[in-house]
């Protein structure tokens, strides 16, 4: 035994080596890179002068002004003064500089933060996302280092009940069983790094469904628990009754405008008197009432070109049944007008990436809609800059004054005169450094497989199968009653709760195997006739490299011939078309429908 040590034999050396190797590997494991490193060179104390500009400082407009930026902050705003001679200068050419915009209602997933930045949104107030990276997002927003992403504040998990709104997205959400756990719940969120508390009061009533939701006592307990810890409490509502409950509990703000009935003057009065702000999220409400902002965004070529695949995907979606609710839209809009006229504080928020919205781009649309609802252009811009900064205590954001963060947007026109000038964003600076305006995505070339000849009668060979949300963990059912070759397919079934957005119906598969990709790149339009009773019906088209990718969802009108221009959906990969589904969607009910004359041409 003794002889083991003096010699240090081979096995002992091996042990030392193994341990050393493990240490080397551990030390070389990568850490999340701060964006700092690559921009370090631009960093220094260099001053950048933006001259010959109209500057909206978050409150008012200054003509013929110059902005000096250094070290990631605004050094000074010079009005009618010559810019210093010996600094790097960019001529704004009579265009307008705005503070970096603040989107007061988003759910920041995936590439949200870089996608939004290309549209001038430099700060996002998230209203529900899992708190897995809050140490990192907090560090990044405190830093002045150059970055390619917008800064993020977040509510973290939302307050809801088991099975309530917010629990349907496939990850665990800590729910509340009653007022007695509110204190602990809020404490836990703050420990996770939530910046404010979001409370969901959603019975589903405004959307034709029924959901369990928090009761008034629990809402009250949550608001008290948040505010007693110096944190804001905001509420998701969709009905006036829910809004009244939130106001009664003393929330700081509502993160949606309700949509179910005409505004009660008493509620308006309380919103004004108690200085409760409203983030109407007009753009997402418009989308859910059949008025997508897509056309407005796409009417600006430069904006459209900047959309990433993720942005295009969400923008091209539509809410189930949105067309059927279109009749209610004038009331929603007049409620918004009345709120503004009464002096309720409004904040701009998009609720991206819900259907019919896109990160960043939809905030521009939101500002446009606020102007349509009666805000002056200055007020609407304030609602996306200084007002959210003030209400959410974001001291150095939403402003272009000395000491503010050098987050800014350059638009070539004058949005004060014409709000549509927002479509002409020329440049964005984040932390004093100009941001690349193009997406780095590589557009995938079309599949090289041979294109299938058109037109195709979808009934010719009976490639229809029943399909439901069971695939997604839901419990709806469907069966094909009759599948007449070259004529029609008749399906019946039942929508059951279980999946977030229950659906059931039939699916046409172009290939022999389910969901296999077929090159149908020549297909310009899809037409079909849907014979059905009342209810919401949607077309879902699955395409692309990944069979599990989310489909395009398009509303269908019952008892009419629907013609869908496929070329209008850029997130659709017609060279890899996998399936076309016709589905009943919505709350629990039995359904029966017939699809006929389905034709791809």
């Amino acid at each position, binding site marked *: 035994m003794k002889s083991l040590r003096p010699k240090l034999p081979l096995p002992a050396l091996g042990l030392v080596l193994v341990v050393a190797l493990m240490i080397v590997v551990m030390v070389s494991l*990568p850490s*999340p890179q701060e964006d700092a490193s690559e921009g370090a060179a631009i960093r220094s104390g260099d001053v950048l002068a933006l001259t010959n500009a109209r500057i909206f400082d978050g409150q008012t407009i200054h003509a013929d002004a110059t902005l000096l930026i250094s070290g990631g902050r605004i050094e000074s705003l010079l009005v009618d003064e010559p810019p210093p001679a010996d600094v790097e200068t960019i001529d704004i050419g009579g265009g307008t500089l705005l503070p970096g915009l603040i989107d007061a209602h988003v759910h920041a997933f995936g590439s949200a933060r870089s996608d939004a930045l290309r549209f001038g949104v430099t700060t996002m107030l998230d209203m529900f996302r899992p*708190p897995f990276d809050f140490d990192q997002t907090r560090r990044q927003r405190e830093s002045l280092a150059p970055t390619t992403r917008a800064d993020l504040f977040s509510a973290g998990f939302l307050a809801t009940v088991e099975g309530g709104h917010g629990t349907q997205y496939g990850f*665990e959400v800590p729910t509340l069983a009653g007022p007695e756990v509110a204190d602990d719940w809020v404490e836990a969120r703050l420990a996770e790094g939530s910046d404010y508390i979001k409370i969901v009061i959603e019975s589903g009533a405004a959307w034709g469904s029924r959901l369990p939701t928090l009761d008034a006592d629990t809402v009250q307990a949550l608001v008290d628990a948040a505010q007693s810890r110096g944190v804001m409490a905001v509420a998701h509502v969709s009905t006036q009754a829910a809004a009244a409950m939130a106001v009664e509990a003393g929330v700081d703000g509502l993160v949606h405008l309700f949509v179910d009935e005409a505004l009660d003057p008493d509620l308006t009065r309380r919103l004004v008197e108690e200085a409760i702000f409203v983030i109407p999220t007009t753009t997402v409400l418009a989308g859910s009432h059949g008025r997508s902002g897509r056309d407005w965004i796409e009417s600006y070529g430069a904006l459209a070109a900047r959309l990433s695949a993720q942005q295009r995907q969400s923008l091209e979606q539509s809410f189930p049944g949105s067309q059927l609710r279109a009749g209610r839209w004038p009331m929603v809009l007049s409620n918004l007008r009345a709120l503004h006229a009464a002096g309720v504080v409004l904040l701009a928020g998009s609720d991206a990436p819900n259907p019919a919205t896109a990160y960043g781009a939809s905030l521009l649309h939101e500002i446009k809609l606020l102007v349509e609802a009666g805000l002056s252009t200055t007020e609407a811009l304030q609602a996306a800059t200084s007002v959210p900064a003030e209400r959410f205590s974001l001291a150095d954001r939403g402003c272009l004054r000395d000491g503010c963060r050098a987050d800014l947007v350059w638009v070539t026109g004058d949005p004060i005169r014409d709000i549509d000038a927002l479509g002409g964003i020329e440049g964005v600076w984040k932390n004093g450094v100009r941001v690349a305006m193009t997406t780095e995505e590589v557009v995938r070339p079309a599949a090289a497989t041979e294109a299938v000849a058109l037109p195709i009668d979808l009934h010719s060979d009976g490639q229809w199968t029943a399909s439901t949300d069971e695939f997604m963990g839901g419990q709806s059912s469907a069966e094909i009653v009759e599948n007449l070759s070259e004529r029609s397919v008749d399906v019946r079934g039942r929508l059951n709760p279980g999946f977030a957005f229950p659906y059931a119906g039939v699916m046409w598969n172009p290939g022999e195997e389910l969901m296999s990709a077929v090159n149908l790149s020549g297909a310009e339009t899809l037409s079909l006739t849907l014979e059905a009773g009342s209810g919401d019906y949607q077309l879902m088209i699955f395409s692309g490299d990944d069979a599990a990718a989310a489909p395009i969802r398009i509303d269908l009108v019952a008892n009419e011939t629907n013609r869908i221009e496929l070329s209008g959906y850029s997130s659709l990969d017609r060279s890899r078309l996998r399936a076309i589904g016709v589905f009943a969607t919505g709350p629990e009910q039995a359904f029966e429908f017939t699809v006929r004359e389905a034709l791809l041409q």
Partner: protein
Amino acid sequence: MNRVSMPLNRRLVSYGQFMYCQWLNLLRLPAYSIPTLVFPVMFFAFFGIVMNPGATAYLLATFSTFGVLGAALFAFGVGVATERAQGWYTLIRATPAPLAGIVIGKWFGAALFSAAIVVTMCAVAAFLGGVKLEASQWWGLLAVLIAGTLPFCLLGLGLGLLLSPNVAPAVINIVYLPLAFLSGLWVPVSQFPGWLKPLAPWLPPYHLAEVALHITGVRPGDPWASVLALSLFSALFALLVVIGWRRMLAMSR
């Protein structure tokens, strides 16, 4: 036990020798060592990188828990049962060597193995799966999982002392694989059917995975409930060890 106690320094040298012997044991039985090392890593590469590229960070925590669970159970359970049957422990009892050295040596082997598995998985996750964690998180994961072998070492030791060498591998496998699955180490508990979910918190690997998930930032909030649960399980398994130990001493007498 009933012998004259050894001076501390001699005792420590003896422990060191037991640890070293365990290393030799691993080195000389590559047919055991290499599969035990490669199996969980391979499993992780398939499920955590190839199949679920989006969930790599989550699965890193659960699959490395799976890895150390196996290392601890097999080193102790099967190893102890075999060596006991070979009369190796009776022989050691006849020498002045401290009997606790057996346990310390085995623990060293299990810890070394666990470390190797965790480090390899971290490397796979980082360099093939693109996972990035703070240095404190990487080291924290390693530390938690090495320390977290304790209840499973005790469980393995208890089983190894109580089971005959023929039965041990079968029983350990029956404990090991369902324990891993039901604790959500392969598939997150949130994906389980509703009736199966309540079972997981009653299984120790679930709690070790919870702590590991906390370290990697997936599970926010306090991990202390899980740490407490792991301590209770350790106490429970220690009781099993005491029973087995007494039986061994009684039988060899």
